[in-house]
């Protein structure tokens, strides 16, 4: 009986340690630090936008989910409740000005000068049908 109890307790302890390890090291691991992420693709904003417009699926396969460095000029900065978005505008459509939209990391907007050449690094999430979206964006210095 004692051996049986010992086995059950050992199994329980192993399961508990495995569960806690999964929670702390896998489920609860920190998010990717996009400030330190390596650049996978470098491209001009005009080229990126026109690739998505002309063939959205081919461009999605090429750029979606990649950390890319985009060069161009920011034409406007929008501020919503939780996001600061820099926009490189190339067209006009149903939803207004269309182009590449960069959701900026904290305090990055201070480094951006409107209509001046700049390179921005971020995680490409795709094309909405009107804009190419990059998230977790920082100014590349």
């Amino acid at each position, binding site marked *: 009986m004692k051996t049986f109890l010992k086995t059950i307790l050992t199994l329980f302890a192993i399961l508990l340690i495995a569960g806690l390890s999964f929670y702390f090291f896998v489920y609860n691991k920190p998010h990717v630090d996009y400030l330190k992420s390596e650049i996978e693709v470098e491209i001009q904003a005009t080229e990126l936008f026109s690739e998505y417009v002309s063939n959205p699926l081919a461009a999605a396969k090429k750029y979606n989910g990649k950390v890319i460095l985009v060069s161009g000029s920011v034409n406007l900065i*929008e501020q919503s409740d939780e996001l600061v978005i820099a926009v490189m505008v190339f067209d006009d459509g149903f*939803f207004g000005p269309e182009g590449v939209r960069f959701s900026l990391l904290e305090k990055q907007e201070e480094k951006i000068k409107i209509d001046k050449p700049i390179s921005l690094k971020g995680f490409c999430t795709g094309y*909405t049908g009107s804009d190419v979206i990059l*998230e977790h964006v920082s100014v590349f210095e």
Partner: protein
Amino acid sequence: MSFFQKISLLLIVALTLCAFNAIGQRYASRNGTVKLSYNAPHGKMETINRQVNVGLNVETGEFRLTMVMLSFRFHSAYNQEKFNEYFIQNAHFANSTFRGKIEDLHKVDFSKKGEYEVRVTGDLTLRQTTNKISAKGKFIVGDDTFSGKSVFLVNLMDFNFNIPPTMEKLIEVTFDVDLKKL
């Protein structure tokens, strides 16, 4: 030209201008939010997309929404990674859209501040599968802005998701947007 002719001409020009102004009055936002909440085996999960494109033509009631799936953000890095992996590997599922109409737009007085109950009906496309949905919503008219809010349920099985039996099939979708005149 007589005085009467001049007045008639002015009236025609004014009416034409008004008509052109009314046609296609569009309101839009690039920062609409869509929050998905669902019950997973290990508890309630939530994810939010704050970069949703929303457009509304107040003359026709035409309503459009587009979003990229990779813009959804999770609290847990593990869930974020799994979600991103799926939509990167399946680039053809990268976008979701809704195209529909506000059925009872006549109830909304855009010149009067207030809250109006409406019904939106249209086609929701998710994972390249389109289904008709109809949801109740609320329209809030303010100074130069309109806000739209809605909470509705979507059955993942209708969109051919391969869901483990332990996971809830219904997800709650919370939609929120502040629209501005274009």
